[in-house]
């Protein structure tokens, strides 16, 4: 997988600027992803690429347009040292894997990496780095194909029957 490397605190205004928020189609959003801050991304990002970033990826606005714009390029995963909370949930809900890798900062732009979600690892330059496991209730949503599919199949919502630690 080809790496698009980003730094810390990549905000959702950078991922998709405010003037494009009347758009909801992922492919059209993708054509404006990182417009003005990294123009070559929307031109060259393609299916199977992966975003690797530092801390607090996706901070700021709750706009779901941000993970949609990334998934519209065909990218399926973002590997970061940490994620902002709302982006993390939005990504899961639209079927984009947010993967936490404490060593993500070691990975360089343009590198080729292998991500193995089942093993919980990223392989880069012959070294394996750990990925934090996706929380179980999030995994259930991802396994269902996103929150829409998950919710479609719910007969009844188990309000307040969430499990203790």
């Amino acid at each position, binding site marked *: 997988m080809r790496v698009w490397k980003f730094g810390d605190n990549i905000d959702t205004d950078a991922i998709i600027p405010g003037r494009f928020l*009347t758009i909801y189609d992922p492919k059209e959003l993708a054509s404006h992803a990182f417009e003005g801050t990294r123009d070559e991304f929307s031109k060259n990002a393609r299916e199977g690429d992966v975003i690797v970033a530092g801390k607090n990826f996706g901070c700021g606005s709750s706009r779901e347009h941000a993970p949609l714009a990334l998934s519209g390029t065909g990218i399926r995963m973002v590997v970061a040292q940490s994620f902002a909370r709302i982006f993390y949930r939005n990504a899961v809900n639209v079927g984009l894997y947010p993967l936490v890798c404490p060593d993500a900062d070691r990975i360089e732009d343009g590198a080729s990496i292998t991500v193995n979600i089942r093993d919980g690892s990223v392989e880069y330059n012959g070294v394996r780095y750990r990925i934090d496991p996706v929380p179980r209730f999030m995994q259930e949503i991802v396994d269902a194909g996103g929150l829409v599919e998950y919710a479609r199949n719910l007969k009844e919502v188990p309000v307040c029957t969430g499990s*203790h630690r």
Partner: protein
Amino acid sequence: MGATVVEKIFSSKCGRDTRAGDVVMAPVDGAMIHDITGPLAIQKFYEMNGTSVFDPEKVILLFDHQIPADSIPAAENHVYMRNFALEQGILNYDLKEGVCHQVVMEKGRAAPGEIVVGADSHTCMYGAGGAFATGIGSTDMGFVLKYGALYFRVPETIRADVHGKFQSRTGAKDLILSIAHDIGADGATYKAIEFTGETVKGLDMAGRMTCCNMAIEMGGKAGIVPPDNTTWEYFSARRKMTPFPLKSDEDAKYFCWNNYDVDDLSPQVAIPHNVDLGVDVEKVAGTRIDQVFIGSCTNGRFEDFAEAAEVLGKNSFSEKVRVIIIPASREEYLKVLRAGLIERFVEAGALVEAPCCGPCMGGAFGLLAPGEISLSTSNRNFKGRQGSTEAFVYLCSPATAAASAIYGEITDPREV
């Protein structure tokens, strides 16, 4: 072990002892959608085979980001949401009431002890009224619209204990910018921030809203001020409620406990391009500015404009600066209007716009060209937030904005 105010709210809503780290499917008391994130939430609601919303009276629906419609797609989004409101029997505030968060507060639709979600990151503002409130995405909101509940991981709480007396022309915005600088842009990720201490108790509701609004700028899931007399007085005129005790136990377990003292706090300015880059105004005084925006959910209330007008006095705004004034809601607009402040601002050279998100949204109007510099009382100074990615946004209080607008450069409001 005692419980935090946030743990108590979840325990009460869930009918059992609920602690930080627990994952619960909790019922929500309110769900807010606006013209940017609402259309997608409605689409997701339908995709989930939703036919009728969980409770039309608990859905808050309005337009504030692109009003009056600034493009045909925006107008289409408004029509789509109007039709949804009609179909579902939801009260639609449409574009008439103002910025979502201010409207939710003044209509009493997020009250102490409630759990409220909004498809907007600054939903955390309702914590100023003692609610647990958090921003969510559109798909999560589609789920909420259908089921009236959502998965939450009950957050740990950072306690921000604030003491001391503000210097003149220094206040809540300076406090929260300094706290953001201390905690950092991701220092409160997944956590609630509970604001306490004599200084917070002394803040009016407007100031508490400014603080809670910006919890998200530290990654926070929620900001909250436990309800006191100020809170209950605010709600007495807005909602039939009997006051009840709601505060953290003395032996509650916090993620950390931070103490802040405002005695020596200078007016703060967050420099481009991150909110946690707050500095004392003295360090950036003299910086040229092209546009000043006073408004937004963070600082668009009567108290904010009164502060700006007090600093403005009989001066005029600099010829070199565009000053854009936008009250956050119709109610606030009327207060500012009746106090004669609109006349004063217009006389001084400002543009006054109808209640909306304005330049903060970076898509409607008031956009910046490459190389331009904006000084703004809003909440984000990200690259490109207010237009060109080659423009610069500085954040400050209404007092600092007004002082700077007089001179056309960043100015310490204490020296005007």
